[in-house]
C-alpha cells in the first residue's frame, strides 16, 4: 500500500471518528457526578463495617477479596511463564559479563550515579514498605508498595552493576518471596473454611478506624500481596536484565 492510499484511509477514518469523539466528550458526565450507587455505598459502609479508612483497600481485600486472589495467581502465572520461557533458552548461570552493542564503548559507571542510587535505593525501599504498611489508612497498599520495593531493586542494579546486584538480590530468595506471598493470601482464605465460614471471611478483630493495624484479616492479605508483588516484579526485572548479558547458552547444554 502506498503512502497516498494510506493517508487517504487515515483522513476518511478521521472524518468519521473525530465528530463522534467530540460528541462523546460533550456528553460525558461531569467529574464526580457518576450515576452508579456502588462507590457511594462503599464509601459509607467501609469505615463503619470494616473499620478501614481507605475504601479502595476495603474493596480489594474484603468486599472483592476473591478477585484479588485471582489477580495474585495471575501475576504468579505470568512471572512463572516469563521465567520458564527466558531461562529455558538462557540457562541459569549468573556469571556472564555484561553484553556489548557492537561499536559502542562500554563506559564504567560514574560515581555520581553510584552515589545517588546508594542514597535513593534504601529510601525508596523504605517508602515502599511505608506505603504497603499504611494500606488501610492512606492511598496505596500491597500492590503499590510492592512495585516501589521492586523499583528500589532496579536502582541497586543501576548503581552497583550486575555482579553486586545478583549477589544482593539472589533470584531464589525472590522466587520464594513471591510464592510465599501468594500462598499466604490463599491460606488467609482457607482459615475461615476451618471454622465453617465462607472462603475469605474476615475473622480477625477489626481494630479501630484510622489505626495502622485496622482491618483484621485485610492486614495479613495486604502483607501477602506486598511479598508477592515485590518478589514477582523483582524476579521479572531480573529475568529481563539477565537478557543483556553476554550469551553463554552454548556452555550450558
Amino acid at each position: 500500500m502506498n503512502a497516498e492510499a494510506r493517508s487517504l484511509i487515515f483522513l476518511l477514518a478521521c472524518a468519521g471518528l473525530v465528530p463522534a469523539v467530540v460528541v462523546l466528550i460533550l456528553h460525558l458526565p461531569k467529574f464526580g457526578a457518576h450515576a452508579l450507587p456502588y462507590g457511594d455505598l462503599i464509601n459509607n459502609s467501609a469505615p463503619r463495617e470494616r473499620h478501614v479508612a481507605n475504601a479502595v483497600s476495603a474493596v480489594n481485600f474484603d468486599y472483592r477479596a476473591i478477585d484479588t486472589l485471582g489477580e495474585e495467581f495471575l501475576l504468579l502465572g505470568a512471572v512463572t511463564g516469563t521465567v520458564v520461557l527466558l531461562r529455558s533458552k538462557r540457562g541459569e548461570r549468573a556469571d556472564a559479563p555484561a553484553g556489548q552493542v557492537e561499536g559502542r564503548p562500554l563506559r564504567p559507571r560514574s560515581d555520581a550515579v553510584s552515589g545517588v542510587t546508594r542514597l535513593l535505593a534504601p529510601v525508596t525501599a523504605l517508602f515502599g514498605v511505608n506505603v504497603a504498611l499504611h494500606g488501610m489508612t492512606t492511598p496505596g497498599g500491597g500492590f503499590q508498595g510492592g512495585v516501589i520495593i521492586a523499583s528500589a531493586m532496579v536502582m541497586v542494579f543501576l548503581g552497583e552493576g550486575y555482579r553486586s546486584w545478583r549477589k544482593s538480590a539472589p533470584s531464589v530468595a525472590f522466587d520464594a518471596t513471591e510464592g510465599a506471598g501468594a500462598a499466604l493470601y490463599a491460606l488467609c482464605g482457607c482459615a475461615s473454611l476451618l471454622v465453617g465460614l465462607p472462603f475469605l471471611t474476615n475473622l480477625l478483630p477489626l481494630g479501630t478506624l484510622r489505626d495502622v493495624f485496622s482491618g483484621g484479616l485485610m492486614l495479613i492479605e495486604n502483607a501477602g500481596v506486598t511479598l508477592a508483588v515485590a518478589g514477582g516484579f523483582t524476579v521479572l526485572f531480573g529475568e529481563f536484565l539477565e537478557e543483556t548479558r553476554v550469551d553463554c547458552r552454548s556452555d550450558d547444554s
Partner: protein
Amino acid sequence: MALLLLLAAAAGAAVVLTRSPPRQVFAMAANGLILAVLFEILQAPDVALAEIVIGAVALPLMFLVILASSRMDRAPRRPDTER
C-alpha cells in the same frame, strides 16, 4: 487541569511522532508521569502510585532491555553472512 490534559495529549503525540525507539521509550515514560499527575489530581492516588512505577520504571525498563538485547545480535553467524 486543562493544562495537564493538553500536556498529556502533547506527550502522547510525542510518543507516536518520535521515530527513534530509545527516545520513544523516554517519551513514553514522560507520558506515564504526566498521566500519574493527572490521576492524582482526579483523586485516584492509588492508581497514580501504580502508574508512576509501571509507566516510568517497569515499562521503559522492559523496552530498553529488549532494545539492548536485540541490538547485541547474538544469533550464531554463518561465515557467508559475516559483515
